[in-house]
């Protein structure tokens, strides 16, 4: 923690101080924002591919809660009859998506940033407190950490999901040359099924993530762009 230069003239007694946290390193901010157009392109082109055999649904037996996807969905977003185009985009951008993900993992591993991110055994217990807090049931503030327990679990899970997307994708892309991988994942159709639900998982994450960012407010959002976050509002005395 830096303190003002002791050689400087003493601050007037009434001066107020502000505490600023250097929160997100520049590299992580870049990986995060670059990933958005890449993941959007992968999911968009994935939908163009999925359209030609859109067989998955939520339901039991003959009863279907939701079919992925109804015809209107493809029509509204202009996603039908574009299989070849979807494949071309998907198999070009897969490289950039993979590279960005690998670079993120390498950076967090080497820089030590993973220590803030990867959940510990305790996180699994603390995550409940975060959920209770977010639902307004727990009134006491959460302990101050860069990432709370629920964030640690979610953000780490998203990275694992990214890795699984690459593996299930490879298993569908080259199911004979990589048949050991395809078999390990349960076979060709199983790998396709897993690949699809991972993509749906990213979409679900996106919705919750945006809601949480909106809730957390400007100061938190700015930290993902500028890297810095005001820790608490100015006080009359040195904190």
């Amino acid at each position, binding site marked *: *923690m*830096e*303190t*003002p230069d002791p050689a400087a003239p003493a*601050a007037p007694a009434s*001066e*107020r*101080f*502000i*505490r*600023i*946290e*250097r*929160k997100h390193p520049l590299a992580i*901010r870049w990986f995060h*924002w*670059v990933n958005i*157009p890449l993941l959007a392109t992968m999911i968009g082109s994935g939908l163009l*591919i999925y359209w*030609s*055999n859109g*067989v998955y649904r939520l339901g039991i037996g003959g009863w279907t809660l939701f079919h992925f996807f109804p015809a209107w969905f493809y029509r509204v977003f202009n996603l039908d009859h574009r*299989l*070849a*185009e979807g*494949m*071309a985009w998907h*198999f*070009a951008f897969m*490289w950039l998506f993979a590279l960005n993900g690998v670079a993120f993992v390498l950076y967090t591993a080497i820089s030590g940033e993973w*220590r*803030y991110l990867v959940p*510990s*055994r305790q*996180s699994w217990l*603390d995550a409940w407190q975060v959920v209770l807090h977010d639902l307004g049931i727990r009134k006491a503030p959460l*302990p*101050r*950490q*860069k990432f709370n327990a629920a964030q640690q679990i979610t953000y780490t899970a998203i990275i694992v999901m990214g890795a699984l997307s690459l593996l299930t994708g490879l298993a569908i892309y*080259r*199911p*004979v*040359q990589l*048949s050991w991988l395809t*078999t390990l994942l349960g*076979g*060709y*159709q199983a790998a*396709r099924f897993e690949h699809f639900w991972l993509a749906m998982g990213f979409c679900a994450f996106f919705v919750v993530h945006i809601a949480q960012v909106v809730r957390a407010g400007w100061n938190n959002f*700015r930290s993902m*762009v*500028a*890297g*810095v976050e*005001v*820790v608490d509002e*100015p006080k009359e005395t*040195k*904190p």
Partner: protein
Amino acid sequence: MSDSPRKVPPLQEIVLPEAEGRARLKKATRRSFLGVAAAAGGVALAWRWLTSSPLVDDVRAPLRSALRFNERLSRAAFSRGRLAPTFPRERAQDPRANGTEGLDDEDFDPAAWRLAVDGLAAGSASLGLAELQSFPKTEMVTELKCIEGWSTVVQWGGVRFADFATRFPPPTPSGKPFDLAARPQDVPEYVSMETPDGDYFVGLDSDSALHPQTLLAWEMNGAPLSEEHGAPLRLVIPVKYGIKNIKRIGRIEWQDRRPKDFWAELGYDWYAGH
């Protein structure tokens, strides 16, 4: 978390007089958002460049290059020793016929059908079905994978293309006798196949064509091929998507130049390999 075995490094904080702190925050914020705006502009320009590039066989040129790059990588890593999974006979079902390109000729007479083969060491050849069926027969139960995303386990019977090539060898660049095991392979780089009317045609890299599970098939699920599934002779090639499994083969040709391919001209990957 005090009882955590891992040491979480402390947060990096700086304490500043409010006015100075606010000024620094403002500067960092403005600089970063300008950076974001510049990056977003870059993405928009890249998007415009990509979506307005010329079409190469119905795919934007940079994406076509990416497909070709993936193909080079896949072909370099390809091994004929890696086999498609096989399944018990009971799992076999009739696949969807899906597509009649090249099968529409109403005057086609299966009884009069002969297979034309060009680009052989001996020039050309012409065979009837009976002659093909006198070759050693291979049966297998593999998964037919349509490029649309569905797949069906099917039992096939026919002659391995590799066995066929041993009987009717292609020319060898080295001039030595054809040897399936030669490494690097000693054959023309490509094989082209088309329907008798020429309306449907596929191009194959010869490594995939000579894969031990590539069959010239006349039997599906224990019965002779039906017309919609490619009677009298079709290709079964599990190292490729269904689009390369051409039905009703009329002509086969070994060649050094890259053959044209029906679906590749319509925007699909030429290699389409598994």
